[in-house]
C-alpha cells in the first residue's frame, strides 16, 4: 500500500493552467447565462475578452514557467522514480503553448460578427475552454487514466461544438465524429485494460520500465494492447485508415468550429500520442514506432492524394490536414518531440490563418468552391497574399520558411532514426502536397476573373488573419522560436 498522495504547491502550479481554463469555462457560461440584459454585441465581446484573458493567462503562465520541471500528483513508486499523473516540463510547455495559441486563435475567429449568429455564444466559449482544458491535461498527462479523461474532455465538447448550430449538417457531422470517436475510445480503453493487465500499472514511466523486462509470452499481448491504444489516437488525429469521418465533419461544422477541430482538437491528439510514444508504451526501438511510421507514410500519402482533386476549399483543407498529420506522425514515430512541437506550432498558426481566410470568403460565398477565389490577388490583395502565404507554408516552400523548416526538422528526425524509406515517402509527399496547394494558389492568381471576390472584410477577421500572417512570417524568419518551444 503506497503512501497517500498529498497536494503540494508544485501540484497546484502544474495544474494551474487547466484549472484556470476550467474555471474560466464555467465563468463564461455563467456570464452568458445570467447577463441577459446586455446587447448581443456587448455580451459577445465580454465573453470573447474573458475567454481570451483566461487563455492569455495560461500562455503567460506557461511562458513564465517554461524551463521548470513540475511533477504533480506524484507518489513514490515501488521501483524506479516517483510515479506522477501530470508533469509540467519543457515539452509540456511547448505543447501547451501551441494548444493555447490555437485556442486563442479560434477565439479570435469567433469574435462578434464573425461567429455565425445562430450559435449560442456562451455555450460555444464554454465548450471551447473546456476542450482546451482537456487538451492541456492530455498534453501533460503521465498516466493512462489521465490520458483517457483528458482525451474525452477534449472530444466531447468538440462534438457538441460541431452540432451547436443544431442544423442538419451540424448534427450529421457531429454524429459521424462522435461515432468514430466513441469506437476509438472503446478500442483504446480495451487496449489500456490489457496494458494494465500485463504491467499492473497505469503510470507511463512504470509501464515503460515494466515493458522492458516483460515475460516474452506477455510481450505479444503488450504489443497488441499498445497497438490498440495507438489506434485509438489514430482515430482522434484522423490518421489513415481512421480518417474518413474528418472531411464530412469539417464540411458539416461551422468554419470556426472546423478551425477548432483542425487546430486544437488535432493538436491535442498529437500531443497525447507524443506523450504516449515518448514516455510510455513505445520506447525507442519498439515495433510500435514502426507501426506509427507506417501510419505516417500511409496517412500523408492518402491525405495528399485525396486532396489533389478537391474542388471545395474546406474539403481540400480537411484532406490536406490529414496529409499534414502524416508529416507530424513521421517525427513522432521516432520520438523527436522538438520536431513535432515545432511542426505543430507552424501548422497551428497557418491553419488558423487559412481557416480564417476561408471563413471570410465562405461567409459571403457559401458555396465554398476553389473557383470562388479566382482573381483574388487583384480584387482582395491583402487577403489573397495572406492566404497564399499560409498555403505556401503548408506546402513547405519559400517564402513559407516556417513550413519548410518544420518539414526539414521532420526529415532530419527521420533520417537520424535511419528510416530512409519513410524519408523517401515524405519527399514524394512534399511534391504531391505542393501540387495540392498550387492548384489553389493558381486560382488566386488567375486573371481576369468574371466575378472576383471583393468585400468589406470584418475588422476582427483582418486583425486575426494579419496576426496569423505576421506570426507565420516571424516564424519564417526566426524558425528557432518554433523549435525553442520544446527543448
Amino acid at each position, binding site marked *: 500500500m503506497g503512501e497517500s498522495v498529498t497536494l503540494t504547491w508544485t501540484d497546484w502550479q502544474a495544474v494551474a493552467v487547466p484549472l484556470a481554463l476550467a474555471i474560466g469555462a464555467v465563468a463564461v457560461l455563467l456570464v452568458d447565462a445570467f447577463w441577459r440584459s446586455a446587447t448581443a454585441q456587448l455580451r459577445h465581446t465580454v465573453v470573447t475578452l474573458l475567454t481570451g484573458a483566461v487563455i492569455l493567462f495560461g500562455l503567460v503562465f506557461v511562458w513564465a514557467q517554461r524551463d521548470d520541471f513540475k511533477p504533480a500528483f506524484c507518489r513514490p513508486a515501488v521501483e524506479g522514480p516517483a510515479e506522477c499523473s501530470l508533469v509540467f516540463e519543457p515539452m509540456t510547455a511547448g505543447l501547451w503553448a501551441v494548444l493555447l495559441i490555437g485556442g486563442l486563435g479560434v477565439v479570435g475567429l469567433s469574435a462578434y460578427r464573425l461567429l455565425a449568429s445562430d450559435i449560442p455564444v456562451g455555450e460555444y466559449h464554454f465548450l471551447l475552454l473546456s476542450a482546451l482544458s482537456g487538451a492541456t491535461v492530455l498534453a501533460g498527462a503521465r498516466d493512462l487514466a489521465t490520458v483517457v479523461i483528458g482525451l474525452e474532455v477534449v472530444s466531447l465538447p468538440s462534438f457538441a461544438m460541431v452540432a451547436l448550430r443544431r442544423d442538419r449538417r451540424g448534427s450529421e457531422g457531429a*454524429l*459521424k465524429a462522435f*461515432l*468514430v470517436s466513441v*469506437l*476509438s475510445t472503446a*478500442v483504446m480503453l480495451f487496449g489500456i485494460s490489457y496494458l494494465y493487465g500485463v504491467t499492473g500499472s497505469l503510470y507511463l514511466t512504470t509501464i515503460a520500465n515494466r515493458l522492458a523486462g516483460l515475460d516474452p509470452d506477455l510481450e*505479444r499481448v503488450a*504489443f*497488441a494492447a499498445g*497497438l*490498440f491504444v495507438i*489506434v485509438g489516437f489514430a*482515430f482522434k488525429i484522423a490518421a*489513415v*485508415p*481512421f480518417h*474518413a*469521418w474528418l*472531411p*464530412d465533419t469539417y464540411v458539416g461544422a461551422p468554419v470556426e468550429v472546423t478551425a477548432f477541430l483542425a487546430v486544437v482538437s488535432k493538436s491535442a491528439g498529437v500531443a497525447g500520442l507524443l506523450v504516449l510514444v515518448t514516455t510510455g508504451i513505445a520506447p525507442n526501438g519498439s*515495433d*510500435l514506432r*514502426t*507501426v506509427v511510421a*507506417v*501510419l505516417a507514410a500511409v496517412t500523408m500519402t*492518402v491525405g495528399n*492524394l*485525396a*486532396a*489533389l*482533386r*478537391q474542388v471545395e476549399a474546406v474539403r481540400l483543407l480537411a484532406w490536406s490536414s490529414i496529409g499534414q498529420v502524416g508529416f507530424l506522425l513521421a517525427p513522432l514515430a521516432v520520438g523527436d518531440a522538438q520536431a513535432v512541437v515545432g511542426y505543430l506550432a507552424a501548422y497551428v498558426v497557418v491553419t488558423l490563418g487559412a481557416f480564417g481566410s476561408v471563413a471570410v470568403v465562405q461567409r459571403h460565398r457559401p458555396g465554398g468552391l476553389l473557383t470562388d477565389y479566382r482573381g483574388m490577388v487583384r480584387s482582395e490583395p491583402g487577403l489573397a497574399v495572406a492566404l497564399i502565404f499560409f498555403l505556401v507554408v503548408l506546402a513547405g516552400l519559400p517564402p513559407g520558411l516556417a513550413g519548410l523548416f518544420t518539414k526539414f526538422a521532420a526529415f532530419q528526425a527521420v533520417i537520424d532514426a535511419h528510416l530512409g524509406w519513410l524519408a523517401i515517402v515524405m519527399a514524394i509527399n512534399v511534391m*504531391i502536397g505542393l*501540387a495540392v496547394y498550387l492548384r489553389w494558389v493558381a486560382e488566386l492568381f488567375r486573371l481576369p476573373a468574371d466575378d472576383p471576390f471583393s468585400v468589406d472584410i470584418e475588422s476582427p477577421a483582418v486583425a486575426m488573419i494579419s496576426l496569423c500572417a505576421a506570426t507565420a512570417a516571424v516564424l519564417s524568419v526566426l524558425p528557432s522560436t518554433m523549435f525553442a518551444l520544446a527543448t
Partner: protein
Amino acid sequence: MIATAWRVLGVGFSLLVVLTAGLLAGAEPGRSSFLNSSIDGLTLGFAVRTDDLTVLLLAVVGVVATCVQVYSLGYLHERPASYHALVALFTAAMVTVVVADSLFLLLIGWEVMGACSYLLIGHYWERRDARSGAVKAFLMTRLGDVGFLFGIFVLGVGAGTFRISELDPAELSSGVLTTGTLLLLVGVVGKSAQVPLQTWLPDAMPGPSPVSALIHAATMVAAGVFLIARLYDLFAASATTLTVLAIVASVTMLFAALCAMAAVEVKRVLAWSTVSQLAIMFAGLSLGTSDGRHAALFHLVTHAAFKGLLFLCAGVLLHQIGSAAFVVLRRYTRRGRLRKALPVTFATMTVGLAALAGVPGFAGFFSKDTVVEAAWHHAQDGSGLGWVVLVSVCLTAALTAFYCLRLWLWVFFRTPALAGGIGAFEDDDPMADLDEPDTSKLRDAPWVMLSPLVLLAIASVVLGYADGVHLNWVVGLVTTVLVLLGALPAYSLWSRGADPRPVVLEREFGVDPLYHRLFAVPARWLARLTVAGDRDVIGAYVRATGRTGTLVSQGFRRMQTGNVQTYLTAAVVGVVAIAVLAGVIGS
C-alpha cells in the same frame, strides 16, 4: 553606304595581308604568346609565329584574297555588305591559321573558316542546292574537326604544351605521335575534302564563284596542306600516319580525277580537280622528305594561282551567261560566239587549264614535276610508298589532261562532227525547250573582274619559274608524254562529238547517296526515335504519374461515401490490417 564601307574594308584588308607578307619576307622568324592561362600545368592560350612558311602562305592568301575581293566588286550585287565582311573574315581566319603557333589559335582559325565557308556557300540562300551544300560543307568539316580536336588533345597532353614550336617529336612516345597525327589527319581530310570526306567540296559549288576561288585556292582546303607542312616534323616521325596519308592521297587523286572526267558543269569539274590536286600535294607530303614538303608547297602556290584563276573564269561565265553547265555553254559555243564574245576570259582560262593539265611551260607543269621527282627519288631510296605515290601521280597527270582538254574543247569550240548541235549533254538540258539564247548582248566582263584574271593568269605561268628552274628532263619528258596520252582521247572523243560518261563516274561512285543512307537517314530516324522516346516513354511515365495521382484522388473521393458505418467498417478493417502488419513486422 555600309556596303561600300565593307567593300573598301575587304579589299583593304586583303591588301594589308599582302603588305604584311611583303614586310615579313626575309625578316627573322619570331614568336610571341599572349592571353595565356594555365590549367593543371598545361598552358592554354594564344601564340603566333612568323617564318618562311608563314610568309609564303600569307602572300598566297593575300594575293588570292585581293583578287577575289576586287573581282567581287564587279561580280556580286546581292547583299554585298555581309559578303565582303565574311570574305574578309574568311581571309582573317586563314591568316590566323597561318600565323598560329598555338594549336588552339590554329583551331579557332580552322573552324572559323568552316563557319565562313558555310555562310558564303549559303550566300544565295534562296537556292536549295546552296543551302544543302553549305550545311554539308560545315557538317563534314566539323566531323573532321572533332578528330582534329582530339588530335590536339593527344599531342598537347602528351607533350605538355599546345605550342606548335615546342612540339618535339623526339619527346613524344611513338604511340602518342601516331595517334595524335592520325587524328589531326582526320581534320585535314575533312578540311581538304579528301576521301572519305570528299563529297562536300563539289556540292559547295552553288556558292558565289569568287568564294569558290578563295576556298579552293588559298583558304580552307589549302589549310590542310599547310597544317601538315607546319607539323611536318611530327608527321614525318610517324611512318603509320605517312602511309595512311599516302594511301588517302593516292585514292583521292584518282577518284577525284575520275569524277572530274564525267562532270558536266565547269565548276564541278574544277572542284573535283581541286580535290585531285590537293591529293597530289598530300602525296608529296606523305613522302616524309623535305623534298616532298617543298614540292607540295610549290604545288600549293602554283595551284593557288591557276585554280583561283579558273574559278574566277568560271565566275565570269556564270556572271555573263548565268550558268556554267556544259549544256548551256554549248548553246553559245555552237554558234561560235562564246570564244569571241569573251576573249579575255577565254585566253586566261586557257592558261589556267594548261597550267592545271601540266602543259610544259606552265606553272602546274613544274610544280607537279617536282612532286613526281620527289616521289621518284624516294622510290629509288627503296620506299614502296614512293612507288605508290609516283604511279598514282603519273596516272592522275594523264587523267587531268583528259578532263582539262575535255572542258576546254567542249566549252569553247564548235564540234565539226556535230555541225552545231549541242552534243552529248542534251539529255540533261534544262533549257531544251527554250528558244535559242540571244547571243548578241554577250560580252566580256568588266575590267574590274578581268584584271584579277589577267594577274592570276600571269602568275600561273610565271610562278613555275619562281623557284628557279631545275627541271629533271626525264621526269619532264615522261609527264609530258602522259599529258599527251591523256589529251589524245579527249580530243578524239570531242572531234567525234561523243562524250561517254560511265554511270559509275557520273554518280561519283555513289558515295553521296551511300553516306546519305548511312548517316543522314539513321540520324533522322534516331531523332524521331528520341523524340518519340521522350514523349512516349519518359514523358509517359511523368504523365502516368500525374494521371495515377488524379485517378487515385478520384478513387479516394469515391470511397468517401458519406455512410458513417462504412467509415467504421474501414476503421475496424484498418485495425485488423495494422495488427496483421505489425505481426509481420514483429516476427
